[in-house]
């Protein structure tokens, strides 16, 4: 669990753009509708199987829905736990790579040197989401906010915070 200092102010909690979870939900919705297209074909089964096919199909569909719900919720949890937290002192990058693979990185705001925004593609341009690449004083360390909404606003916020922090440190 992330621990914050008592006087630390959380300025922003950022998640990926809703369009990404929406597009995944759309795929799940199509998969959800799939059994209803299979159902009418049960009529084509031989006559002696007619009494069995429907209860069997009902059960298989119920299990399929159960499986789909668990898979969908794993996607939701993955989306929900993948966050970036901007406080007045640092940026926290929490990446839930898989169910049991979690990475938490911390970047001091006064070490930020360069902030780049990349908006690439038709949907990101239209829906206003993109990547924000934050480079710190260390050459190897970069922090990337992937597919976040309002990337320019976040860029401005990080630059403002780093400018405000820098004179205090000198």
């Amino acid at each position, binding site marked *: *669990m*992330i621990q*914050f200092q008592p006087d630390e102010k*959380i300025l922003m*909690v950022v998640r990926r753009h809703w369009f990404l979870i929406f597009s995944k939900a759309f795929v799940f919705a199509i998969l959800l509708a799939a059994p209803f297209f299979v159902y009418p074909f049960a009529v084509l089964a031989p006559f002696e199987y007619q*009494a*069995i096919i429907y*209860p*069997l199909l*009902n*059960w298989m569909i*119920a*299990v399929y*829905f*159960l*499986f789909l*719900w*668990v898979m969908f*919720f*794993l996607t*939701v*949890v993955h989306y*929900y*736990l993948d*966050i970036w*937290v901007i406080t007045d002192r640092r940026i926290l990058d*929490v990446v*839930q790579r898989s*169910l049991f693979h*979690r990475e938490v990185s911390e970047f001091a705001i006064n070490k930020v040197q360069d902030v780049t925004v990349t908006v690439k593609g038709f949907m990101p341009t239209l829906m206003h989401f993109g990547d924000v690449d934050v480079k710190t004083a260390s050459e190897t360390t970069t922090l990337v906010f992937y597919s976040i909404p309002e990337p320019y606003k976040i860029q401005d916020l990080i630059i403002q915070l780093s400018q405000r922090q820098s004179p205090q440190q000198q």
Partner: protein
Amino acid sequence: MLRLIFTIFFFIILAVGGVFSWVIIYLLKTFALPQNDRSKFLFYLFASVFFILTALSIFFFFRIPFDKIILPF
């Protein structure tokens, strides 16, 4: 015999679903931000639909006429 195979298969599915649901609950509870209680809503949403679907699958399972099923092999 067929009923036994189906029952074992069914309970394996339920067990896997149960493990996954435990993982989801654990992750939501452990990694939620301190000031954020939306994870509680997500947990209840997941649990309620999971419970309904489990009940539905158990209900349909007991409606399968196993005695009428003849394996083609």
